[in-house]
């Protein structure tokens, strides 16, 4: 009952304001109220013309709010980026870029890791030396002389 009375008062107020609107006497606040009123659903048919006129401005206003969507999108994208960066940071802290495994035990001290790396490089140098020494011994004149002597002695 109370709602119905209030609704009737609203209609009366709306009628009064529509009249003022056509007379060009409405204030900004009154027009705002009127727009809000006309945006309601289940309004009597007699308000259709005013709804079309003032509703046009309202939809235009709504459309302008659509422009704020890219901002929301960008905010979401920025938030995702921040989360990704933080995840990468946490991941890199948990899994350091440089590490070594010695007999199944993880070593993360960079200096120790570097020493271990140098040790593996040394394996390659020394192996390369062995090959070179072998090749040098093949060119050794003394060795060749000894081998030739085998034939001269025969």
């Amino acid at each position: 009952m109370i709602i119905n009375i209030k609704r009737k008062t609203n209609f009366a107020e709306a009628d009064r304001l529509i009249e003022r609107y056509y007379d060009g006497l409405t204030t900004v606040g009154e027009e705002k109220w009127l727009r809000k009123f006309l945006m309601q659903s289940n309004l009597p048919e007699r308000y259709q013309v005013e709804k079309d006129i003032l509703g046009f401005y309202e939809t235009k206003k709504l459309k302008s709010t659509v422009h704020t969507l890219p901002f929301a999108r960008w905010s979401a994208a920025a938030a995702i980026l921040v989360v990704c960066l933080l995840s990468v940071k946490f991941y890199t802290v948990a899994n350091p870029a440089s590490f070594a495994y010695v007999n199944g035990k993880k070593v993360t001290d960079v200096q120790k890791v570097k020493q271990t790396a140098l040790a593996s490089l040394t394996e390659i140098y020394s192996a390369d030396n062995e090959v070179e020494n072998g090749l040098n011994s093949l060119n050794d004149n003394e060795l060749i002389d000894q081998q030739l002597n085998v034939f001269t002695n025969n």
Partner: protein
Amino acid sequence: MKSIKMHFVPILILLLAISPSLLAQKDLQISKVFDQYGEKKGVVMVDLTNEMLDGYDFSSFKSITIKNNPSAADFIRKCLEKDQEGAKKVKQVIANGVLTSVYLQLPRKGQLYRLILFNETFNPENKITLIYIESKNDSENILKLILKKK
């Protein structure tokens, strides 16, 4: 929408630029060696990223040393057979028909020069050393630097 595209293109390019360097070694068969044997006993594995090592500037340095594991050595040789396709052999030693040492210069991956060094010794014990190097410096220069150390 256009502005989104304009901003996403550089991000996409950045991701594409980063991903090859992250995955440069993963396209090789030897990556399986590091995955399979790296954390086992009797094995020493090193993984250095963007570190200076004895004057060398490496984007990535991975090495693995395995002792007394002939099956691992055979597995590495099989991996190297695949990885040496399209690579330049700088040095190769075959003893009794078995590959015991090889230095491979792999084709460049983006800006990165890549090298594989493999060696197997038998005295005083059986020891395999496999090294994978990625660097922005020319691999010829890296090899010269390494061999100069002798």
